[in-house]
């Protein structure tokens, strides 16, 4: 188990490093033009050259990357090219909104998808199964932002139950926070449940058809034990893999949902930074998200190993 963990941590670190190298190469390859973009078309050549030098963009790419990496390791991700803000402070501010949105959505979608998926598997072939299958197929096919827009039109503009835009920090008011993230969470949960319920159903059916389930039944155990203790336990591994995929998908979905609902998270920050060409901010976002994904995957790997005796007991 320990070697397994150590290997995963090293793999994760290498992954983040590789992503940072690739992203840095992509983002900083335009070098000289950056200062012109920042200063505008009317700035003099001298000013542009000076700015290029100030930003260190006149140096070679490996040199720049080494600089970025050494400061990044001390927690300094540089400062924005367009605003007087430190990247790590800005990211820190934005991270709470995104993470709270994604964590709550993931939690709900996992619980609902598990319930619905297991229900469909257990009641296979009944009308419940058919309803679940058809709805999740349809819900997964339609892009998430269409659900978000539909939710805004119905619950915010017509019924006025929830605000259409804005975000209240949980530290300011818990009630306000819940109120402000309800619609965005629903928008993310619809897609999340739709895409994972099918897979959980499949994983469950796969287990139920295993030989050992028949043998367990041959011992006269209650269906409750056979399904909810033995089958569910064995389907949990594939289920966790579904959650891992789901998490990455939701981070991507959050970019659009944050913009539609005007939530000051990483998603809306990255859209703005992308339009402006605020490279340090984008670089920071990619690396932070890569780290989050790696950490979440590591946690899921640990859970996976803990669930699987073959990994745990060795």
């Amino acid at each position: 188990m320990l070697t397994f963990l150590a290997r995963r941590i090293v793999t994760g670190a290498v992954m983040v490093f590789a992503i940072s190298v690739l992203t840095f190469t992509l983002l900083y390859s335009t070098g000289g033009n950056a200062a012109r973009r920042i200063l505008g078309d009317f700035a003099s050549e001298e000013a542009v050259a000076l700015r290029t030098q100030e930003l260190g963009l006149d140096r070679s790419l490996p040199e720049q990357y080494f600089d970025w990496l050494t400061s990044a390791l001390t927690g300094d991700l540089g400062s924005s090219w367009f605003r007087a803000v430190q990247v790590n402070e800005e990211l820190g501010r934005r991270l709470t909104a995104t993470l709270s949105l994604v964590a709550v959505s993931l939690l709900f979608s996992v619980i609902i998808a598990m319930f619905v998926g297991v229900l469909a598997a257990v009641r296979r072939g009944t009308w419940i199964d058919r309803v679940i299958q058809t709805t999740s197929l349809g819900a997964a096919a339609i892009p998430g932002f269409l659900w978000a827009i539909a939710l805004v039109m119905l619950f915010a503009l017509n019924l006025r139950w929830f605000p259409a835009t804005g975000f209240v920090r949980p530290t300011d008011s818990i009630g306000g926070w819940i109120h402000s993230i309800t619609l965005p969470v629903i928008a993310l949960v619809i897609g999340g449940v739709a895409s994972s319920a099918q897979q959980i159903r499949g994983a469950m059916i796969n287990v139920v058809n295993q030989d050992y389930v028949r043998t367990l039944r041959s011992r006269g155990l209650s269906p409750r034990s056979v399904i909810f203790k033995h089958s569910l336990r064995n389907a949990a591994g594939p289920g966790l893999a579904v959650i891992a995929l789901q998490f990455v998908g939701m981070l991507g979905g959050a970019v659009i949902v944050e913009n539609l609902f005007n939530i000051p998270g990483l998603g809306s920050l990255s859209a703005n930074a992308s339009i402006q060409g605020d490279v340090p901010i984008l670089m920071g976002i990619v690396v932070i998200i890569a780290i989050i994904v790696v950490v979440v995957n590591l946690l899921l790997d640990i859970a996976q190993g803990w669930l699987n005796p073959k990994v745990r007991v060795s």
Partner: protein
Amino acid sequence: MSKQNNAPPTALKRLLRDPQAIVVISILVILGLAIIIGPLLSQFDPARTDLGSALAPMGENGHILGADSAGRDILTRLLFGGRNSILGALLAVSVAVGIGTTSGLIAGYFGKWFDTLSNNAASLLQAVPGMVILLAARSVIGPSMWWMMAIFGVLLSAGTFRLVRSTVHSVRNELYVDAARVSGLTDWRIIFKHVLRVVRGPVLIQAGFLMMIGLAIQAGIEILGLGDPGMISWGGMLSDAFARILVAPQLMLWPSVMLATFCLCLTLLANSLRDALDGTQRTSPATIRKVNREIRAEMAAEAAFYADNPIMMGEDELLHIEALKVGYAAPDGSITEIIHGIDLQVNRGEVVGLIGESGSGKTQTAFAAMRLLSEGGSILSGRVVWKGRDLSTVSEAEMSTIRGTEIAYIPQEPMSNLDPSFTIGYQLMEPMRHHLRISKKEARARALDLLRRVEITDPERVFKSYPHQVSGGMAQRVLIAASISCEPDLLIADEPTTALDVTVQAEILDLLRKVQAETGVGILMVTHNFGIVADLCDRVAVMQLGEIVERGDTVTMFKTHDHPYTKQLFSAILDPEEIREPYVAPSGAPSPAAASLVDTSLVEEAEGRLETKTVSKGASA
């Protein structure tokens, strides 16, 4: 090589027979044609603003679907926009499928360093949400939709790569690929002739889903305001509409409808395609339920007759199967009968062999007796009388009070019949705690005792072990221990030695004989081996194609058998070379089988056993 020329309908024919696929394809074709031809016929310029027609309702000023806030014709923009949206998504799909398939084929077929490298690259591409990478890329390349979709295609290629790689892995070592290699075809010929054929279907299905994702992400970029302002697309229309959602929410309608329709149709088409390519015509769960309802109705009618004509069971009779028919629901809702009305009795303490080759229905008979048939299978008629109760009609709840405590089951393949997630000890204790309502401590003591009884030398260790930590022979001992844990009257053993090594086979047979002698349990022994029959069974029934063709007591059967099939089974036994010593009652020493050099067919053992049996029969007579 093994081309399925006579396989009934091809995947394409099956697809065109699926009504859902027909509807979906028609919609896609109509919309596709409209998008290709429509712009040529349209009288409006999609980009021309006309403030006089701003927000014109449907049908006004010739605007069939109305006009947007700048007075531009919505229908024209939908058709022009569709062209860009779909071409953009197609670009992403082509890039993804091109890169993914090529790299997946190479990695899967040749492996080595390329496999490691590309696999890591794929993990890298999937580690960060595609949307975030696109936003970062856009800051460098500008708002070009084509570049963005091409980059998105590269990100998507990781998924295609994994799909192709795993598909290639699964066929790489198939016999026909080996045969092609041996016959001297070059690797590339094999890839194009054989491997690509297998990969084609799954990739096509995935392309359908990728197309949908491409459409969605393309619109998503527009909604974020990052699209190309000079290009008309569905996402751009949505973005415009969302900006005016308070003034003119109706503008959301048409681009949403188009996008949703396309995405839905692509998903449904990919699903139909999957079903069509699958081809294995599995019976749908809904059909199974329908068939089962019909069967239950018939069984209920039959039950009335049986209630008036109870079976007079002998005092020693445990199980009495009469005119049992078993069938499976076919995809078209009909029933395929596999067991055609068999009779079988097992008496208290008796060992009855049910012998036949694979597919003869012997295992299905055993499952039917315990009501453990696989999904879709059911008892069609006849009765399975157990101590006066007809098991073919009792409720599932009642059945589970009989399973384990009265009738227990020993499976064929030991390793796949233990739950991998629970310790052996737990799996032994659970039924005892459930049925016998004993404390955990007591259950533990009994479980350890059972492990000792099945001659496991280190019961404490095995108790704590997980199934993957023990050998196949050990696992089979555990399964035998589990089967006798609640002191059943009958064991149904489904070829309990077939999956084991030959040396272990003999040990397990000895163990079964010992358990039988100690507990006096009746055994229904399903087997394809007359050696085992001779070794253990008092009586034997020969089964062929779902019918019992001959039966009798073992000794008589070995001397005279009439049915040609029985003769065939006998001739399958090799000639005995040496006679093994008969089984002696245990005296603490390891079983003799473990020490002796054991044959492959168990025939000597069979003959030896037969001899003792004849002797003992003679003695008792």
